[in-house]
């Protein structure tokens, strides 16, 4: 196995050209997805880093793929802006490229959309070592096929991402959270539902089993001036719960974003799902020893397991779901039956006809 750490885009191109099999990674924060495979050249992209262009008045920035998101966030916050898809594992050192390739968004993606909705353009090195630009640098662009989208969740199999352009938004001045406790799952689901169709501007809705039942966390963001009235209104919708502010509030979301709730040595599985499927899934997983979080009003399930992730694959399959192991380790990272496999293989043939980029 050869490990390479290119220091420039042209070096990435050169390494790609000389290696028959390539696997690229960022800071390695998605531990399960950062693999080493025999006979494969590994490209560590963390030196390909730096903010290239940032024009706050355009609501866009362009940065190299290895740029750490903490650094981006700092530059953005100096201008009162943020990445609304709430990238995860930022404090662990996540890079922009790794986040895009893993296709991950945090709990805050609920309000305005996920990483797919904020990525405007990419440059990647293709399997011939050529630089390819997809998408654009402006907030709106419908020219040609949207190649940038293909990099979302690509796990490095379609090219080595070297540069990215994102859309950003003005950041809310502050956040406030209503924390609710329910004895039964049905009540908790009802609460999620009520929030998700309400006319309140909600930033995030999270649900998780607790020791005594089920907790629901509803976060709103906005101006300091209106916040007291708005959180009060949210409270009155349920007439119960606890209002959290300041660091008590922030820590809840930080935990979720950073996956700090996942015990060391456990594996974490991402499950795309819907609110309507939680009841059935909970019925199955309760018996297993695992931790669960349901993000975005039940649109994303996160399962943390102590045993090997494959051991719970039957449960996932039974529910008609499919998942990806993000943290920990697993023989197989993809669990369950993936849709659109045949369409994907066409795309793979088009973009990487010589199969240079390893599929993990």
């Amino acid at each position, binding site marked *: 196995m050869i490990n390479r750490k290119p220091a420039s885009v042209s070096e990435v191109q050169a390494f790609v050209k000389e290696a028959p099999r390539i696997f690229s990674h960022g800071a390695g924060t998605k531990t399960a997805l950062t693999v080493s495979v025999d006979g494969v050249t590994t490209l560590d992209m963390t030196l390909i880093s730096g903010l290239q262009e940032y024009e706050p008045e355009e609501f866009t920035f362009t940065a190299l793929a290895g740029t750490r998101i903490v650094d981006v966030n700092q530059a953005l916050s100096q201008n009162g802006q943020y990445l609304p898809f709430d990238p995860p594992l930022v404090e662990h050192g996540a890079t922009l490229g790794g986040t895009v390739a893993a296709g991950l968004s945090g709990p805050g993606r609920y309000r305005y959309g996920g990483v797919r909705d904020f990525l405007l353009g990419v440059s990647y090195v293709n399997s011939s070592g050529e630089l390819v630009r997809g998408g654009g640098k402006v907030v709106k662009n419908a020219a040609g096929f949207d190649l940038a989208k293909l990099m979302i969740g690509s*796990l490095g199999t379609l090219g080595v991402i070297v540069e990215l352009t994102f859309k950003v938004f003005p950041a809310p001045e502050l956040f406030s959270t209503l924390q609710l406790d329910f004895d039964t799952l049905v009540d908790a689901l009802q609460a999620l539902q009520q929030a998700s169709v309400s006319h309140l501007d909600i930033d995030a809705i999270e649900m998780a089993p607790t020791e005594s039942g089920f907790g629901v966390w509803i976060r709103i963001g906005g101006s300091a001036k209106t916040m007291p009235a708005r959180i009060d209104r949210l409270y009155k919708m349920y007439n119960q719960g606890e209002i959290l502010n300041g660091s008590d509030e922030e820590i809840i979301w930080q935990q979720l974003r950073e996956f700090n709730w996942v015990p060391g040595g456990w594996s974490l599985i991402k499950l*795309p799902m819907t609110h309507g499927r939680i009841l059935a899934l909970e019925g199955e997983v309760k018996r297993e020893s695992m931790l669960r979080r349901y993000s975005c009003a039940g649109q994303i399930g996160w399962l943390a397991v102590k045993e090997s992730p494959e051991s719970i694959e039957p449960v996932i399959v039974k529910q008609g779901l499919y998942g990806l192991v993000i943290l920990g380790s697993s023989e197989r990272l993809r669990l369950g039956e993936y849709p659109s496999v045949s369409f994907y293989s*066409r795309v793979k043939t088009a973009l990487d006809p010589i199969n240079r980029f390893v599929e993990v």
Partner: protein
Amino acid sequence: MNPDKFLSDLSQIYPAERFLTQPAQLTPYESDALTAYRVRPLAVVLPVTQNEVIETVRLCGRYQIPFVARGSGTSLSGGSLPVEGGIVIALNRLDRILRIDPENRIAVVEAGVVNLDVSAAAQPYGLYYAPDPSSQPICTIGGNLAFNSGGAHCLKFGMTSNHVLGIKAVLPDGEVVQLGDESLEGIGPDLVGLFVGSEGLFGIALEVILRLMPKPEIFKTVLASYSSLEGAGNAVSQVVASGLLPGAMEMMDELAIQAAEAAVQANYPPGATALLIVEIDGEKNQVEEEFEQLMGVIESSGAQEIRVAQDDADRARIWKGRKSAFSAVGRLSPDYIVQDGVVPRSRLGETLAEIERLSKQYNVRVANVFHAGDGNLHPLILYDGREAGSLERAEEIAGDIIHICIQSEGSITGEHGVGMEKRAYLPQMFNEVEMNTMRQLYNVIDPQKISNRGKMFLDIDSIFLNNGGAIYDQ
């Protein structure tokens, strides 16, 4: 490739009233909203079931007959123009809303469903479908998806692509695929995102899963008039700099204002050179606070006249003028071309000045209506098709405007697509490697090049058909 045999097989799929071959029946399908182009198709079929579409596509594959999917034919770039020797698959009747699911906030609809009908069906649950092209009372979800259509309210919540969760499609070689599903998130390359915006080249979307959103609690809308486009443009920059995120930020110039006024009596301030519409939507308290802030910005932006919509009717009137601008401008001139290039927002002012200069130089009238919030221009270039050289002049000025967009690292199209009309410019925005990547994708998805052949790529006939695609196998 025997068209008679093909047509006779095709007629087996459809009853006579949904299988059109008579010249008089074909005429309405010969062009779309880009009226400068016309092509008579071999036949037009009107499927009412997904199976009919699938069978039709498979038949086309067997005979290598090109097909064009058509929604309502409102494409402004010639996207739904028929292909010579091919058929049109008109999807207006494939229009069942299969499911509105308030629990998961999704709508499952067939591709021929009209955009606004989705919101109407979601209305009882307090939900709506966000992307709002001005053509939304007639255009279809399939057409929206093919072009990644936008609208006035796409600044905050994005375009069609940001609201499509799943697509069931029949690929040009007859395979039926399901991309994405009901969840907000997927795993693996974002294939839904690739299909959206593929301009009908990847086959036909049959059924689409759309994300619905709760309707904003309130809207607050202000209209301000300025004595110059630059003045209005500066106001846009100031709004953005103030840290606000409006739901919509739209501009119109003098010619567009006059046309809208004459067409729908929007009651816009008389004599304005430029008009800016800004709308804030969302939760009541927050909107009121932000609107106050917005008014502070607008009041110090040198506006001539400022009007705040007093009620829903007032707001509707303001938007009616804006949304009818295209058809209104149509009254000023027998024909027009609309461009929809994008420039970085900070370059709006200079770009508009340049368009004005070009308009004088070519002696061609240009009306401007555009999405100022995201730098998406819509210059409407007026011409008279009966006058020799008039279309050519209009196309020349359109080309100049597109060049400005490319030079400023913008885009040749924000939402109307490449279609027929901007095929020559796509290779100016993307280099040969990038163009080849797109052609390769087209090649693996439509090896026979029968799905909307000749759109997006200018050179598809010469490159693929003469070489049987071999050039890309090297």
